[in-house]
């Protein structure tokens, strides 16, 4: 192994690690605000990438009909809950707008020459389809049992992941897909070839992490989210709605997942079922951070990317084994560090 290979592997590792770090932060955020271990995080990556690929290949964007189904179900749920409460069947203005959105979007997608659009527009359209999935998922699957234990919420996550994988197969088909790079501009620094797309990913990742930090530290909404993460009941007593914060957390998770998918799609071929492993590598990062610390989680996720890249070179058959066994010394270290006798909820 020479320096050249080390640098290439490091670039690969850091690029993937940057994506895992984004996912780890998103997983951590969703967990601290809603106590949901959001395993379907990886499905957003895959759906985002495959939607973008479908647009570029000139295929119909079928996923928008799934959004329509989720939207109708979510709005109906709200109407039903209101009917049960005050006996009136009524659709609010906000409800009607929400209901119209996917159909307007579908019309738009049908009319636009998707394959000829500039890539940033394609990316924006992909986000416009994918991000609303976040709040609808929270409404439909998690909100009715928001007070359940972490374990029950996790089972819901796994069930949702399964359903989304099956739906992904139906919507996108079994073939993998790759998109055209955003920028293809070979960079030479000394003897090293830098992949410009990889640099773009790292940049995006850093920007998003900074943006998240700003959101949580500087804005009232961010502070409200943090308050819920810190003390749910207390935040609720201060008039912070748990439903709203839940939906907000899931929207951010959807945004981050989809962006990650759009960013990574030119470098890796993704299949309908690739989401699980991607998401779990984010989880490994989050677990390294003890499901508490954001910086350690991000660093852990980058480490996961690096270890993955180097073990792919040395022992490619054992790549996944090495990555997922990594979690064991981490857990061991955590369990030696403290032994609280605590009550599970």
């Amino acid at each position, binding site marked *: 192994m020479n320096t050249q290979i080390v640098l290439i592997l490091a670039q690969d590792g850091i690029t993937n690690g940057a994506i895992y770090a984004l996912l780890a932060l998103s997983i951590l955020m969703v967990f601290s605000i809603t106590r949901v*271990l959001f395993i379907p995080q990886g499905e957003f990556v895959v759906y985002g990438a495959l939607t973008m690929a479908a647009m570029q290949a000139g295929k119909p964007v079928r996923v928008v009909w799934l959004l329509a189904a989720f939207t109708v179900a979510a709005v109906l749920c709200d109407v039903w809950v209101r009917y049960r409460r005050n006996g009136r069947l009524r659709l609010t203005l906000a409800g009607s707008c929400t209901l119209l959105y996917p159909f307007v979007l579908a019309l738009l997608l049908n009319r636009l020459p998707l394959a000829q659009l500039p890539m940033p527009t394609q990316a924006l359209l992909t986000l416009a389809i994918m991000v609303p999935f976040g709040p609808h998922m929270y409404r439909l*699957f998690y909100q*009715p*049992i928001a007070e*359940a*234990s*972490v*374990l*029950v919420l*996790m*089972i*819901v996550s*796994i*069930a*949702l*992941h*399964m*359903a*989304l*994988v*099956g*739906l992904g*197969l*139906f919507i996108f088909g*079994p073939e993998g897909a790759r998109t055209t790079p955003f920028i293809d501009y070979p960079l030479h620094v000394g003897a090293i070839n830098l992949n410009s797309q990889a640099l773009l990913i790292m940049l995006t990742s850093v920007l998003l992490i900074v943006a998240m930090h700003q959101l949580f530290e500087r804005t009232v909404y961010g502070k409200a989210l943090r308050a819920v993460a810190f003390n749910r009941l207390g935040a609720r007593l201060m008039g912070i709605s748990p439903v709203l914060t839940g939906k907000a957390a899931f929207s951010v998770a959807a945004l981050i997942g989809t962006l990650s998918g759009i960013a990574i799609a030119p470098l890796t071929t993704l299949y309908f079922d690739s989401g*699980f*492993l991607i998401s*779990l590598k984010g*989880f*490994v990062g989050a*677990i390294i951070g003890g*499901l508490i610390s954001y910086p350690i989680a991000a660093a852990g996720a980058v480490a996961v990317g690096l270890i993955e890249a180097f073990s792919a070179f040395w022992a490619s*058959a*054992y790549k*996944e*084994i090495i990555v*997922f*066994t990594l*979690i*064991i010394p981490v*857990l*061991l270290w*955590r*369990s030696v560090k403290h*032994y609280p*006798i*605590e*009550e*599970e909820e």
Partner: protein
Amino acid sequence: MKSRRLMLCAVLLLGIAPLVLPSFYVTLLNYIALYALVALGIVLLTGVGGLTSYGQAAFVGIGAYTTAVLSTQGASLPAWLAWIGGSPWLTLLAGLLLTMLAACLLGAMTLRLSGYFLPLGTIAWGLSLYFAFGAIERFGGNTGIADIPAIHLAGASLADNRHMYYLIWIFLLLGMAGISNLLDSREGRAIRALKGGIIMAEAMGVNTWRARMIIFMIAALFASASGWLYAHMQQFVNPVPFGIQMGIDYVFMALIGGSAQVWGALLGAGVFTVAKQLLQDVLPRLLGETGNFEIVVFGFGMILLLQRARHGLAPFLVKCMPAIKPRMRKLDPNVAALPRRIMPNAGEVVLQASDVTRRFGGLLANDMMNLSVRAGQIVALLGPNGAGKSTLFNQISGVDTPSSGEVQFLGQRIEGIGSRKIARLGMSRTFQHVRLLGTMSVLDNVAIGAHMRGTSGVLSAAFLRDRREENRLLAEAAKQIERVGLGPYMHEEAGSLALGQQRILEIARALAADPCLLLLDEPAAGLRHQEKCDLALLLKKLRQEGLAILIVEHDMDFVMNLVDHVVVMEFGKKIAEGLPAEIRENPAVLDAYLGGVE
């Protein structure tokens, strides 16, 4: 004995099934039983113990691959291993042993951590092991290992699925019987306390970490046995059925059936397997595409189940057929009473707290507290809300460790040794916020208190070798329940009692441990006048028997007419100490309670 007749019918039906059913259905029944054996472990783990594992399929794989390698590759194995392949029963043992080692290692790492690290950890190692099955050369990669010999039993080959059927179902029925026996025993109560009763169980002397380890181990061993049966039934293994998807499916089976009932595992495995078979036939035809679309139905179905009927299908079945409700425990009035502890002599110092200080950051919750309790004495700890009484209780009972100072119990220093060991020394307590297992009977709840006075383990419970001791424990629990006046409620669910009665129940549980020091945290709160009088009488009687009692209470009348000695706290400090009559006149105390007397 309606339920016994029902069971007999079921077993009879199972017995003739392979003689009359076509071979397809026999194979289906075989799969259902194989899955149910794994799901049974998850019922114990998730439904009873409150832990979850998505990695059970990997343990199935360990069982299957162990026997596959040992029984087909004897020629290329070193001699010290090759001989095991001679008999499938030996390979079963080898598989179980290997599984036990793996479970031990994984359990030691994850079971001490918060509940959600375990399921995440199980996904990770489930994936690792699955990839390992595919990557290790000896395991034949993704093509797997073929030509695994059939099992021979008493000279007859079990190569035919109809014959294998009996072996598989015997394994399952034995497993179910063993688990239901276990749950109805001393260790079983400790296991059932894991879900929401860990602090209480530790205070009753239960080693909750060990209990978690036990159920984790049992679940892993059941999975491994299922893998062994599977390998010899199929006579072929490859990595696919040991992947994470199968691990998730096993959890779903347990949840569909109802993870709190032993037979829920069988119900769930049955419903799941049949539904999967049907969906795999129907869905591709409906959608016009091939692919495993049944996971969409299972995914959304599971979410709906968790939202609407979190306890699975079993409760509905129980409602339709009351005969399958668990029977009430019969008490044997003639068993010998449990041996009792040698009590300290009256007047001897039992508990001595010296200069106990507890800091929470900048807050001094206990500041140089001194306190002693003698055998045959009732001491009251008084003070306004937030004075630090409960904190001091926690320092004494080992739930918390003092920042400085020492606590001596029967002449032994106990700070930092943990509530379990302290309980073993003879201290027992009640909790300010009652900690009961609401769905268990009053009798079972109190019997947890007597946990330390028995010794029967898991195996003797599973094979019913513990019944003599078990009867003595239950008789002791019943005695204490009668003593505190809850006799009529003995077989009710503890959660259905009024709050005052639940507090009394906690006293009975504490007494079942046969303590020499009793810590009572606000025992009279929520009691009616007559109940308070009865409680005072009981405590006086216990004092006569030589018990030392430390009590936190707000009801002045109750305390002043009962106790021998009063300690008053405010802001973490002791402000007064003495006889009840003196305390009543103490200006500092009046100041603290009434805001000053001008």
